[in-house]
């Protein structure tokens, strides 16, 4: 290892070239072994080289929000989808807007395409809605099983305790329930739903409060003491919809939550455990955009998986309010449903007002389900809803051809560099060539390993970056070689020349490589998609260049300086003092000037 310069001694690490060489050899062997052990013998190829899947998403204009599809929202959506897709470990996935209302997601082959598609496709709008009623998702069962939520549910809403709670009635839908009691079907359907409505003799204090916050709800006025039957046809309609809804059927599930405005109550399906359930839900109280962060974590004390949520300031206020209200109620109305794209993904119950912007959901999570929910909560807050417009598989044929062309170009470039070095530096060129080879091996193995490690995918620009890097790497050798030759020109013999040249060359190499690396890093940070592959490759090879020059080129140079071929300045060594125009050790006259040139005597 090239030790930092100590004092003014220009020696560096020349004393132990063997150790540096051993280090780099070990690194190479380890990387190569790692490559074979993990069976990652080739770099993962990007979508442009290997083919893959391209998903086109189209933003749907929501009813009542004609201006929602705008640039800002599209960009936010791209950011969210990108995080989600790359959160899967699918790196190199490109998410871009296209035109006014399309988003393209490119997913390279070799990743879990289905999972990615699910994540991308289902990501839509997320809301927290209070639960008004719950029933088993199965079609209207003839038996009057009350509030049928079967044992699957972790929340306490399972029991049929729905019957005697009065407050729930204050919810908009409740006012409507009396009307629905007329429909026989409804009665059979769900006790839980009916229960709040029927006996309600108008709720207590909570009522007025409720009336305030069920803001935009048209029926907010409805909770008038007198349960005017079917005063609101929309709610009656909801009731009917709930009764007939069969959540085990996919088309019905999909239709259930469609086109509902956040401020309207709705019916929705969702899975509880392994069974479908259906809900009547109040207006959205908290939007997914109010969630700042959420993740599935393991609760050390209880040893179970929970989901922690952090709200934005605005979200925290809203959440405190809704939980405060819900906590006073009984099951199932002490629950809120987390609704993603019209589907209930969780319906935790609330036992107290949760203020302060942090909350956790617990009960019955597996690691997978906790993390999934965390993901959905933190990334699910898309400002728009999307539909999958087309899914295209890109053929790999073209990419293969381009890769071939790139490799040929690389080979030609390398050959040209080698020829130039050979002609100009002769024997020295071999050191450069072997160094380039070492650099190539390191680059290749690291790329192959990174495919698995961080999802690095070699795309065409990355190939390009690697080719361009040949030049950068060779530059460092040139800087060093020229320095050595300068020292020889001053009349030094090879061994001191090699050592004296090193500290100066080292500084130049470090400074200029730092600039290259800075460029690559900036490029990597600010850009997207394909460009990143290029920047990454450039940055990686720049770092490797430093490693190779320090650990390989310099030590090898030190060793070779001891050989006769080089130290004697063999004409083919590239270090022939005569050819380099070195001055003889003693003064000599130049240009026939009789006087010893006073100024250029530089011999040490």
């Amino acid at each position, binding site marked *: 290892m090239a030790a930092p310069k100590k004092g003014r001694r220009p020696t560096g690490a020349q004393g132990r070239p063997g150790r540096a060489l051993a280090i780099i050899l070990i690194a190479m062997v380890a990387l190569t072994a790692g490559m074979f052990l993990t069976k990652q013998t080739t770099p993962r190829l990007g979508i442009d080289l290997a083919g893959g899947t391209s998903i086109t998403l189209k933003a749907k204009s929501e009813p009542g929000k004609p201006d929602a599809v705008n640039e800002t929202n599209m960009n936010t959506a791209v950011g969210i989808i990108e995080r989600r897709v790359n959160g899967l470990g699918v790196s190199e996935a490109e998410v871009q807007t296209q035109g006014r209302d399309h988003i393209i997601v490119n997913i390279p082959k070799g990743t879990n395409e289905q999972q990615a598609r699910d994540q991308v496709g289902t990501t839509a709008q997320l809301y927290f809605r209070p639960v008004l009623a719950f029933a088993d998702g199965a079609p209207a069962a003839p038996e009057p099983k009350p509030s049928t939520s079967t044992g699957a549910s972790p929340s306490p809403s399972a029991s049929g305790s729905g019957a005697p709670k009065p407050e729930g009635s204050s919810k908009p839908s409740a006012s409507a329930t009396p009307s629905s009691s007329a429909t026989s079907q409804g009665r059979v359907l769900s006790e839980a739903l009916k229960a709040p409505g029927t006996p309600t003799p108008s709720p207590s204090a909570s009522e007025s409060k409720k009336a305030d916050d069920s803001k935009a709800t048209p029926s907010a006025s409805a909770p008038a003491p007198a349960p005017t039957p079917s005063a609101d046809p929309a709610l009656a309609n909801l009731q009917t919809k709930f009764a007939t809804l069969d959540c085990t059927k996919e088309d019905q599930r999909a239709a259930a939550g469609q086109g509902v405005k956040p401020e309207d109550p709705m019916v929705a399906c969702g899975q509880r455990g392994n069974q479908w359930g259906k809900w009547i839900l109040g207006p959205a109280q908290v939007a997914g955009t109010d969630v700042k962060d959420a993740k599935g974590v393991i609760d050390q004390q209880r040893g179970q998986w929970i989901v922690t949520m952090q709200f934005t300031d605005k979200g925290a206020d809203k959440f405190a309010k809704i939980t405060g209200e819900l906590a006073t109620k009984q099951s199932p109305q002490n629950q809120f449903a987390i609704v993603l794209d019209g589907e209930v993904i969780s319906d935790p119950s609330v036992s107290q007002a949760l203020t302060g912007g942090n909350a956790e959901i617990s009960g019955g999570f597996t690691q997978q389900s906790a993390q999934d929910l965390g993901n959905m909560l933190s990334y699910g807050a898309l400002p728009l809803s999307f539909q999958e417009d087309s899914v295209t598989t890109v053929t790999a044929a073209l990419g293969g051809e381009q890769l071939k062309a790139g490799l040929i*170009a690389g080979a030609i470039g390398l050959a040209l560099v080698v020829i130039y070095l050979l002609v100009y530096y002769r024997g020295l060129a071999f050191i450069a060539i072997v160094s380039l080879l070492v650099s190539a091996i390191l680059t290749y193995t690291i790329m192959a390993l990174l495919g698995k490690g961080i999802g690095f995918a070699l795309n065409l620009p990355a190939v390009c970056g690697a080719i361009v890097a040949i030049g950068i790497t060779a530059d460092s050798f040139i800087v060093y070689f020229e320095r050595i030759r300068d020292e020889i020109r001053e009349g030094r013999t090879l061994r001191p020349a090699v050592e004296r040249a090193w500290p100066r060359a080292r500084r130049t190499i470090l400074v200029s490589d730092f600039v290259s690396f800075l460029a690559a890093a900036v*490029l990597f940070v600010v850009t997207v998609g394909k460009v990143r592959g290029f920047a990454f490759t450039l940055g990686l090879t720049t770092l490797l260049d430093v490693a190779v020059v320090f650990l390989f080129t310099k030590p090898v140079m030190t060793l070779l300086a001891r050989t006769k071929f080089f130290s004697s300045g063999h004409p083919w060594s590239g270090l022939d003092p005569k050819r380099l125009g070195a001055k003889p050790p003693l003064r000599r006259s130049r240009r026939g000037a009789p006087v010893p040139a006073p100024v250029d005597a530089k011999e040490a």
Partner: protein
Amino acid sequence: MSKLGDLGAKLYRGEVGYDFVGKRFLWYGVSILITITAIVALAVQGLNMGIEFKGGAVFTTPKTTVSVAHATESAEKASGHDAIVQQLGNGGLRIQISGLDTDDAASVKKQLGTDLKVDAAQINADLVGPSWGEEIANKAWTGLGVFMVLVVIYLAIAFEWRMAVAALIALIHDLTITVGVYALVGFEVTPGTVIGLLTILGYSLYDTVVVFDGLKEGSKDITKQTRYTFSEIANRSINGTLVRSINTTVVALLPVAGLLFIGGGFLGAGMLNDISLSLFVGLAAGAYSSIFIATPLVVDLKEREPAMKALTKRVLAKRASAAAKGEDAEGADGDDTPQVVAQGGQGRRRR
């Protein structure tokens, strides 16, 4: 080759040398001329923006026997937009249709399959909206800004602020020339071009830094001697590192040339070609500017310093008195190109 080696030795010893610094105004003039040309070309001709910036579709077909003219006609008929068709090295065609939106792309692709007698499923369709290129361009500007700020700070610390300023000017100069060449020749500007352009940032500076490093070393303890002025030492440094600069530039250009040749010759067009073309132009400009622009600029900035002015005065005074004494002055240093190595504190080792 040993010719170049000899030259290297002579340059190193200062036996030969080109007066880069002394003739700097000539090169400033050349650069200003090029820059003006670039700006005029940009204003008059503008850049030939690729599909990625305008929005449209690029179809790449497998090998087909249909002629380019025929393909152009059928592509324009199928899409109702302008089409550019290129023959690829493998016998396939690359069809660019501008303005085509996603909704129509599928039908155009199908139509092309029929017209060109290839399987539509084998046609690679790359559809891009105008926002993609815009995004890349925006990020490129951001990257450019961030990089320039960082690199100026770094160079100011590693060297000094004058060198940082000179390097920055040289960098802007390189970018202007590259963009100017694009405007003048009408090469297509694609995201690949932008990538190449951004890479020039690091590369152009690499050369500059190598030269500056030599200059920094050469001008160490400069005020402790009275033999040379700063500009003479700077010129000496450029000449001393000239071979190194030429070699690094050649070696950097060779792989890029390989890319350009293969990218252009074999694939006709595409990312490889775009990146390598802008790199090639930018690298050449970068090598030129590091020698002819960056260091002379440092000299201009540096010579304003009182310490350097004083030095120049002392040096000139000394030379004047030596000349007055008459003998011995002609060969040694005097007024032709400075001949003496300023490397590594020559003052101490002189005898």
